[in-house]
């Protein structure tokens, strides 16, 4: 008779499956059917917001000041012995930036790099999301793909640079390939994790309401995995931005990575540092933008 029991067999009683609602249920003393909404709201976001802004800004400014001071002291102390370090002195940067700006290279290189980044990321999403869905939904596929995926993940995408140049020649293509090769794994892995975290009850609810398999994907799977995919894209963006600079040092004659080598070859170390700073600033800006764009809009 016990074998007939249903609950444990098919998981229709998803106790402990960790869905959000069940955790909402457990403290059941204040479950007043007629009552208003709950006082306590889980999630740290609100608490975060309540933290006063001023100390964060003040300390942030202080950290920046210390960094610039250390930089100034170091480049001045060591600058006498080393002409490259002397070129790194902070007060020389405005002139270098002006020179790069006047020649119109900095904007052009930045936009070239960003364009390649975007293409590479798009390619990584197009490949990574379906791949992650396959890994998440098909156990055989997951088992079969684990060895190659783990292997490829552990190989620095830059290792493929000579191959990329040989295959795609010079220009955008090899850089986009390398960016995609770096960005595809976090997206794939996070998508698969999102599928693994799917609440089976949600699927059952959709099925009993008559959802076709495609409707289940559209109304349950995609909204459920969305935050996971978004996290994957954000991680991928960071990795891709790190990878794109060395990727642009091979086989191309544009982009911020190329500009670093170009400045070095002209012994314009101050300009080189300006490019490096621009790379860092764009990275920070993109991450902030991505956080804002890809924020979890779940209510």
């Amino acid at each position, binding site marked *: *008779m*016990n*074998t*007939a*029991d*249903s*609950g444990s*067999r*098919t998981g*229709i*009683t*998803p106790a402990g499956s960790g*869905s*959000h*609602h*069940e955790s*909402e*249920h457990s403290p*059941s*003393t*204040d*479950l*007043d*059917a*007629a*009552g208003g*909404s*709950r006082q306590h*709201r*889980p999630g740290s976001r609100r608490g975060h917001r309540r933290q006063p802004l001023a100390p964060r800004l003040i300390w942030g400014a202080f950290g920046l000041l210390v960094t610039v001071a250390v930089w100034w002291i170091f480049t001045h102390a060591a600058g006498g012995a080393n002409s490259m370090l002397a070129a790194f002195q902070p007060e020389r940067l405005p002139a270098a930036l002006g020179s790069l700006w006047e020649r119109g290279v900095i904007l052009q290189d930045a936009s070239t790099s960003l364009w390649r980044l975007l293409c590479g990321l798009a390619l990584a999403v197009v490949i990574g999301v379906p791949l992650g869905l396959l890994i998440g939904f098909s156990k055989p596929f997951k088992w079969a793909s684990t060895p190659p995926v783990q292997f490829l993940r552990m190989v620095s995408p830059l290792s493929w640079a000579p191959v990329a140049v040989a295959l795609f020649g010079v220009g955008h293509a090899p850089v986009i390939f390398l960016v995609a090769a770096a960005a595809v794994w976090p997206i794939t892995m996070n998508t698969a994790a999102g599928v693994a975290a799917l*609440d089976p*009850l*949600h699927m*059952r*609810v*959709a*099925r*009993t*309401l*008559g*959802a*076709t398999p495609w*409707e289940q994907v559209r*109304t*349950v799977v995609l*909204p*459920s995995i*969305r935050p996971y995919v978004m996290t994957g894209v954000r991680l991928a963006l960071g990795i891709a931005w790190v990878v794109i600079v060395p990727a642009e040092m091979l086989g191309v004659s544009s982009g911020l990575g190329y500009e670093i080598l170009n400045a070095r070859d002209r012994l314009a170390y101050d300009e080189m540092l300006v490019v490096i700073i621009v790379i860092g600033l764009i990275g920070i800006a993109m991450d902030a933008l991505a956080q804002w764009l890809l924020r979890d*809009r*779940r*209510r």
Partner: protein
Amino acid sequence: MSTHTEPTRSGGTASAALRVTEVSKTYPGSSTPALDNVSMTLRAGELLAVLGPSGSGKSTLLRAIAGLESLDSGSVEAQPAHDRVAVVFQSPGLFPWLSVRENVALGGRYKRNRDRFDHDAVEDLLGVLGLAGLADVPVTELSGGQAQRVAVGRALAVRPDVVLLDEPFSALDPATREDLQVWLRNVARELNLTIFLVTHDVAEAVALGDRIGFFGGPQGFSREWVPARDGTTVEEIVAYYRNGGDVPGSWVI
């Protein structure tokens, strides 16, 4: 009010809404069947409460009716003009990325329901269910009782002919459970619902059931009570449990 205690609230003839005929199901790898030649009839407009020991297979029967289980043999037939069942599970399973209203209207997104789905009726339904004030609230902010009411609303919004409730209130605290039982009885009357309710709670079965079936084991029902006719008490049913019931499958309901 007293007319509501009749076995069929609709007042019409007790036509069958659903007929289960000689249904059998054995899970792969199991030597004993989960359902063994089970038959039963659900009448239009009634609330059939199904009691029974844990593991007797009553939830399996519910899932078989819901179409969530493949059957080895037998059939589940909706009678003409009754072709749609909706299920409410023990956990509400609301979609946290949707509001209360959007959760209730979920069925309207699916092709199967489109011809029958009325988005304006969702507003009325929210009112009937006492959820009108919560329509735009994120479901993550609902209490357990509120969430389960939304889950019932989501099932009712597709205008099902039969509603299957699988221990819908068992995860709630006693006070909320009692509130929701009263609420369900009123909603069932107002909307003239046909309900198949699986429960462990004898008092719930007595309070809500037009009929109460005792699902003794995989072979099926061993007893039926009609509280309004027989004046069935909780004690009587508990005693029946204690005596181990009759032979499963010995009663046709």
